[in-house]
């Protein structure tokens, strides 16, 4: 079978529709198929990444025979490829985790879950890979709709409320993006991102500004920037635990990818970058401050997640090569670490309805493995060495110092102190309080443990030896910032 | 070999001198106070009799090793301090040379504390609450008076760029002056601090006989008390000689030494003979007012 980037989209999408059918044949098949799909996607990630890194090229996949700028194309470049690979692999780990998650949920529900799960992965990967702006919008909507549905997955929770808020804000997001695409189209007459980028210098600056702002707000909603992130704490809280990990690891990552792609490649307007820094800082400060005062574990993780996205926005906003490097590193770290926090945190408050911090008191004795991994993740996310989070934070600070943004450094560090306080508080509660809650604990199944353990290994490995991953990130950074080569390689495809 | 023998004999001579002078001063003080209070008072050699009596008494009980060692610490401190204080000016009389080139003022200040702490430990083991109360009072008061004292010392050291006692004495001999005139504020601060050092009225709350049964020493008798009394006498001599050395030009011979020390001794004896005693915190705040002020002035004086 020929390996091509289009399989990233085609296979999970196909799987999504086939799951109910296979579910009829054998009820376990519905659970196994996504795993196989994601395993295969991980495999092609390795192959494709290897291919582009070793040959130093970009794979541009033409769909339906129309070469760019007329047809839709997929771009597998170091950046998009890195993100797509990350999504697939993280997806696989999370699938492993979900395999035996909530055995009491009946089979039909499970099938729905996996259908939506596959859709979500399709959408998120599609956003990253596509080279067409309208196509990006479509994938965004696929992601969004499946995300709404997954948020409301549990009937007994307040999932519907969270989902409705998400949908309300999300509709604004899609409307604004669609409007922006429309206006953009009227200006440049094309939807291919490379061609847009090529024609952008000729666009009237006023229109350029308006379109950019529309995109900014639209993608800002998806990437949880303040004050556009009202939906996210609720969604993280109400969605099933592993889906929280997916939101943190994929959905918002795809959102910020869209933002960054628009800002850096399509528009290349440096004036918007300070705004990104400022918004990022506010996001971070507000979110972490609220997280400090949270009494509920998942909500705390949610706000922490928002804060981290603010940090990523700041990093992108600084706009130098080093800071973008730091930003992508942060995205990677946040995906794996927050993923692990959600996965392990879910088991800490498994049967609790309120999911308050009181429920984790003294749980370290009863769930030693999960607690340990949660503690490890907490140490990692606040940037303690020798874990992965340390390096990304360090790179960001170095990048900020290079351009003398001392205020930014100061605010990041102050916020980090807050972060340390609330994460260490949880660790302390886990290990050094007496357990008073009588809620029955759930021992994680073996596959869940394995999933968390894999993430933990990555966290420690990257923390001790960051060069493991920094090569890829370096390539991705160059790829993102080198607009010309992106345009060239996309537009030259099929010209032979 | 010879030098060591000489040194040992010199040390013995110094101790004897200090002991005798200290004892007599104590006796004179008792006499003076008695006269002021319109009593006849004991003869001035009474202290000798007391010590001899104490040594000849048999001590039949003890409360443990620390009580045993407390007086030893005290006498160690006073004799060692004595060894490091030059008794006479210049080369002086070689009998009294001792070890005074081996230490300096700061060492001496610390050495002088050694005794009180050691004695306090001894007093502590007796378990007598009066002892402990006396000790806390004594130590607290010490924090009060040590500060102006050290300030005046620092002022002198800063002014003359030496920390050694012999250095200060040499300066006085060379320039033919007394340091109490070169830096009068330092002298005032030091003398006020000395009032506290001697634990005489009105700063005698430490061993206020009527309240805490002589405080730290209340559980000591016989040989222990004898040792302590000897130590106290030597210590009085050490303090007086030190003051004479650094403020009053030292002494060329023993007569001069006795006259100067006695003159100095009269200050703590006569100050507040008739006044009621200060409570501990009052004593501390006393020392932290004017003496401290003079100390600050002294340092300023020295540094400009």
């Amino acid at each position, binding site marked *: 079978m020929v390996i091509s980037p289009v399989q990233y989209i085609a296979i999970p999408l196909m799987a999504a529709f086939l799951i109910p059918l296979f579910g009829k044949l054998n009820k376990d098949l519905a659970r196994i198929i996504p795993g196989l799909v994601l395993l295969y996607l991980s495999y092609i990630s390795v192959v494709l990444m290897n291919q582009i890194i070793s040959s130093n090229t970009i794979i541009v996949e033409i769909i339906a025979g129309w070469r760019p700028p007329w047809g839709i194309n997929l771009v597998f470049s170091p950046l998009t490829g890195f993100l797509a690979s990350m999504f697939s692999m993280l997806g696989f780990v999370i699938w492993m985790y979900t395999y035996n998650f909530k055995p009491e949920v009946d089979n039909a529900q499970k099938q729905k879950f996996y259908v939506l799960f596959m859709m979500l992965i399709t959408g998120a990967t599609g956003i990253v890979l596509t080279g067409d702006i309208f196509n990006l919008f479509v994938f965004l909507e696929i992601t969004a709709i499946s995300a709404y549905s997954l948020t409301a997955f549990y009937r007994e929770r307040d999932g519907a409320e969270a989902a409705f808020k998400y949908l309300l804000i999300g509709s604004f997001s899609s409307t604004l993006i669609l409007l922006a695409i429309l206006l953009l189209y009227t200006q440049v007459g094309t939807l291919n991102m490379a061609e847009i980028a090529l024609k952008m210098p000729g666009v009237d600056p*006023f229109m350029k500004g308006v379109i950019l702002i529309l995109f900014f707000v639209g993608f800002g909603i998806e990437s949880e920037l303040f004050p*556009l992130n009202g939906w996210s704490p609720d969604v993280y809280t109400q969605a099933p635990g592993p889906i929280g990990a997916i939101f943190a690891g994929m959905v918002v990552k795809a959102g910020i990818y869209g933002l960054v792609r628009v800002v850096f490649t399509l528009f290349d307007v440096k004036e918007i970058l300070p705004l990104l820094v400022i918004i990022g800082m506010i996001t971070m400060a507000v979110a972490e401050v*609220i997280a400090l005062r949270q009494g509920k574990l998942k909500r705390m993780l949610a706000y922490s997640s928002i804060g981290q996205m603010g940090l990523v926005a700041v990093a992108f906003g600084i706009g130098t090569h080093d800071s973008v490097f730091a930003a992508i590193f942060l995205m990677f770290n946040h995906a794996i670490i927050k993923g692990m926090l959600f996965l392990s945190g879910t088991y800490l408050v498994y049967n609790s309805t309120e999911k308050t911090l009181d429920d984790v008191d003294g749980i370290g004795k009863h769930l030693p493995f999960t607690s340990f991994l949660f503690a490890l993740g907490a140490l990692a996310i606040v940037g303690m*060495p020798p874990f992965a989070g340390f390096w990304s934070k360090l790179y960001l600070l170095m990048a900020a110092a290079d351009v003398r943004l001392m205020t930014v450094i100061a605010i990041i560090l102050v916020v980090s102190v807050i972060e340390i306080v609330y994460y260490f508080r949880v660790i302390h509660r886990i290990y050094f309080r007496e357990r008073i809650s009588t809620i029955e604990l759930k021992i994680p199944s073996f596959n869940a443990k394995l999933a968390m353990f894999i993430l933990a290994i990555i966290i420690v490995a990257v923390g001790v030896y960051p060069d493991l991953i920094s090569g890829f990130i370096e390539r991705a950074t160059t790829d993102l910032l080198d607009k010309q080569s992106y345009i060239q390689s996309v537009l030259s495809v099929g010209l032979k | 070999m010879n030098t060591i023998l000489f040194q040992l004999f010199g040390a013995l001579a110094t101790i004897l001198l200090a002991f005798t002078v200290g004892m007599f001063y104590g006796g004179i003080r008792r006499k003076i106070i008695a006269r002021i209070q319109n009593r006849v008072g004991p003869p001035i050699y009474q202290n000798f009799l007391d010590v001899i009596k104490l040594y000849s008494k048999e001590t039949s009980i003890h409360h443990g090793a620390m009580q045993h060692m407390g007086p030893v610490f005290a006498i160690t401190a006073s004799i060692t301090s004595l060894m490091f204080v030059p008794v006479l000016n210049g080369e002086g009389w070689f009998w009294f040379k001792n070890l005074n080139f081996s230490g300096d003022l700061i060492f001496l200040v610390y050495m002088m504390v050694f005794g009180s702490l050691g004695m*306090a430990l001894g007093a502590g083991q007796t378990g007598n*609450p009066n002892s402990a109360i006396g000790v806390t009072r004594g130590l607290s008061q010490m924090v009060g008076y040590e500060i102006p004292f050290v300030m005046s010392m620092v002022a002198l050291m800063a002014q003359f760029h030496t920390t050694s006692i012999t250095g200060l004495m040499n300066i006085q001999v060379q320039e033919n002056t007394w340091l109490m005139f070169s830096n009068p504020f330092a002298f005032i601060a030091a003398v006020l601090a000395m009032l506290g050092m001697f634990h005489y009225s009105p700063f005698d709350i430490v061993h206020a006989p009527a309240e805490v049964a002589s405080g730290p020493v209340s559980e000591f008798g016989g040989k222990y008390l004898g040792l302590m009394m000897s130590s106290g006498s030597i210590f009085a001599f050490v303090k007086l000689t030190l003051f004479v050395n650094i403020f009053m030009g030292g002494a060329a011979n023993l007569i001069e030494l006795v006259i100067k020390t006695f003159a100095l001794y009269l200050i703590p004896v006569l100050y507040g003979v008739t006044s009621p005693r200060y409570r501990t*915190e009052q004593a501390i705040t006393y020392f932290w007012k004017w003496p401290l002020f003079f100390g600050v002035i002294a340092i300023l004086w020295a540094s400009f």
Partner: protein
Amino acid sequence: MNSLILLLILVFGGALFSYLLNKFLPILRDGFVVLLMLLVNYVFFTMDSSTQIDFEMGGIHLQWAFTSAAFLFGIIVSILGLLSIIYSTAYMKGKDRLGYFYMNFLFSIGSMLGILMSRDLISLFFFWEIMTWSSYFIVIYSGKDVDKRGLKYIVFSAIGAYSMLMAIVIIYGFTGSFLLTDIFDSIFAIKASYQLAIAILLMIGFGVKSALMPLHVWAPGAYSGSPMSFTALFSGALSKMGVFGFALVLFNLVSNQNWLVNEVIAWLAAITAVLATFYAVIQSDAKKLLAYSSIAQLGYIVIGLASGTYLGVMAGLFLAVLHAVFKGTLFMAVGAVERQAGTTDMTKVSGLIRKMPWTFTASLISIIALAGIPPLGGFVGKWMLYEALITSDHYYLVIMVFLSSTAAFLYSYRILFGLFLGQEEPEFAHVKEAPLPMLIPMLLLSGISVLSGTFPGFILEPIQDAMVVFGFDSRIPNIEWWQLTVLFNSWGDKVVLQNVMIAIMGVFLIALAFITIKGYRKQRYVTTKDISSSGEIIQPEDNMTFQIDFYKPFERAIWPLLKRRIDDYYTDLGNGLEALFDLVRRIYNGNGQFYAIYVMAFLALLLIAGTKYFGF
């Protein structure tokens, strides 16, 4: 293999292994950790002084080297580490989560060694943070009031660490390198205002670990609340990392241009020393007392370093070593009392001297060293400190140090009296002497206290080597500062410690012999109930203990200074911030429509602002 890496692998690997060992073979755990520390000591002391390693990680050039400064502080870490581990084997017997305890214990030892070996700021910070969290995990390991204690510790540690990180990245931003050697060459190029900022940030960073006021509030709780075996290391070695940082980075790097920084730090340290001593005096818990005492002692050390003179820095470093020795002993002794008698509250326990004579001996020696009384080691450090300050015209600092040292006599006496002397109460009649693994470390350390008083040269020698690393070349002032038993100041005055020792020991032994031999046979021991009390006969059940409000008069005298505590200000600040944060939370009021309005308002704002500020 490079022995530097071997050392680190040994400690960190050993830490993980001891955790696993505790899980599967707990019997071997104690033996393993002691053996491991012995091995670490062996590797450490046989390491070649030129050992160095350069490597690149994550695109950053890192350098580790075994400098003479690393050796000096490494002595403290490795020896105190070994002894406190030996002590732990007995002290921690029967407690749970020992694997966790030893793992974090060894992690802190390893991270300290890592800090010392670092020759670049990133490694320094890397190990610094490991030290922070590993020590945090022990701070919250046991005891009461853990929440507040742990929170304070981690908040202040985090503030310190991140201030440091900010200084590090600013330095990097200007010099483009993290290597200390590069930075020393190019630091002068940085603008003065940034230099000042760096200095302040580093001051906060290292000030927290060395418990400088007003950053000290974590220390009393953290010191007194951790298991004493760790506190010995915590106060003895871990806090010295702040001192090391001060010496290596701050004074060396920044403040040589900026005397004001030195002055400010010296005065902060002096105030720390005085106030901490006062607090120590009024404590009634021995652990708290020692904790405050540690803060005060660290104050002296920092004053010495900040004085910036050769003698002063030497004094600071000497005190740093000595403080590790005697405070290590004292914490161990208090730990022994805690374990044997069940409490360290001095209002409860008393009169243990006859039950625990060896513990008392160790405490007595250490207290004499702590108080700076000749002829023990503490005096040497104090003497050098005073001389350094006087000869460099810091007269009022001398007074501050003196005030603090004099007040220190009060708590020195208090702790000996409170625990060991005074009335022997029947409820403590059952108390036995501490087991050998606890006694041996204490007595060994007291031995060092005694020796260093007469032969400070043994310690001053490595200090002199280390000072080259801290930017002091010993040949340049061309003054002899010390011989094996003689100390000099820059005015040529000296103290001959040998003579001091001979005089004191001579008089002491003669007097002791006299008093012992005289009427020895006829003397007998009587209990502490058998005391004179104005003719009344005291019954065994009468409580004659004087322990409560021990220094009440003194407390009354200094009360104006202690009335309002820094803690209270921090508490107010914390409460204020929490209230503010709760206000911020109201943004997310739960109504989805509001969120939509935020979106549209934000869009409108951007569109309006866009035309104005972004130029379209």
